[in-house]
């Protein structure tokens, strides 16, 4: 029970992820069956659908946009602030901040991660590890979207008696950019609006919110 209490956020969202992915698999399969029967193709098996490029591209296009959103948010908020938002730091801290404030090198405490006081490239890598991993997963997911996307796109092209396109050409198609941009716009809207809403609105007890009684002008204070 202690494990569940201490890892509630990860466990809760992990279970939601699996439930939603399962739901997407069933809904996506039903949608594909309908489209295949309409265009004169055969009804695919469910497990074959799970290994298909159609399912892969639908999963990957959402993954890449989520990781892009958090990657950009993590990096942009080093230099950009939103005065009054608990998601922002105060103007005096804009930038990478001092080694003392970041507790690196000789300023690292006894319980600091090894690479925080190792110095050199290890401290530089560890200092950027969150952005590197989130950005790396974004690029990998976007690559997967493009590879699965060209496969699904070409299957549709052939079903409509049209020529398939090579991967490099697919990167310039409306299908690829429509899939990417329709996800990006919603992510950017959600994260930008949350930063601004949190200046004026409160959610009692949430670390994503300021304390209910905090002034609208208060920045960098979670409650």
């Amino acid at each position, binding site marked *: 029970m202690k494990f569940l209490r201490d890892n509630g956020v990860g466990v809760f969202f992990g279970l939601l992820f699996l439930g939603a992915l399962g739901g997407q698999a069933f809904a996506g399969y039903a949608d594909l069956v309908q489209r295949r029967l309409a265009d*004169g193709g055969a009804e695919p098996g469910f497990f074959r659908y799970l290994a298909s490029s159609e399912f892969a591209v639908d999963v990957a296009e959402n993954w890449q946009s989520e990781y892009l959103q958090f990657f950009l948010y993590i990096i942009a908020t080093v230099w950009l602030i939103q005065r009054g938002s608990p998601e922002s730091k105060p103007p005096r801290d804009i930038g990478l901040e001092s080694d003392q404030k970041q507790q690196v090198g000789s300023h690292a405490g006894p319980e600091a991660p090894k690479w925080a006081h190792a110095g050199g490239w290890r401290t530089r890598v560890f200092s950027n590890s969150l952005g590197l991993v989130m950005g790396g997963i974004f690029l990998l997911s976007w690559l997967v979207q493009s590879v699965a996307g060209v496969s699904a796109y070409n299957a549709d092209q052939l079903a409509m008696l*049209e020529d398939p396109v090579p991967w490099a050409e697919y990167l310039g198609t409306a299908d690829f950019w429509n899939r990417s941009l329709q996800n990006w716009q919603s992510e950017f809207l959600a994260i930008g609006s949350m930063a601004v809403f949190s200046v004026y609105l409160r959610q009692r007890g949430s670390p994503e919110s300021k304390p209910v009684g905090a002034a609208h002008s208060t920045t960098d204070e979670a409650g």
Partner: protein
Amino acid sequence: MPGSRVVIAVAAAVLASGCASVSNSETDSVRSAADAFVGALAKGDAKAACELLTPKTLRRMEALRPEGCAIALGTLKLPSAAVREVEVWGDAAQVRTGGDTLFLREFAHGWRISGAGCTPRGDQPYDCVLEGS
């Protein structure tokens, strides 16, 4: 970091599924279906060729030509040159023969012809003498 390992493993599996469309066994299955179709045309065995059409292509053919596929197909003079190139994407494929472009779809009982006697029209779909898409 176990979380990122899971992500990388899933991403690799997804990448593999994207590339699975070009597996050799699929290409061989498409090639043998196309070989059987052009072989039947070359021998004048229209009945065998008709059995290799997708259900929709066959229905369309029989709706347009009341005399039935086996008789009508012989009058279409479809090219019967040998298969040269095969391209497979998911449950659909394109085959270039010496004188034609064929389109195929995959069914439980194998690959079937959904377009034959096809000529390109630029950005438009191919114009096919025989089609079921």
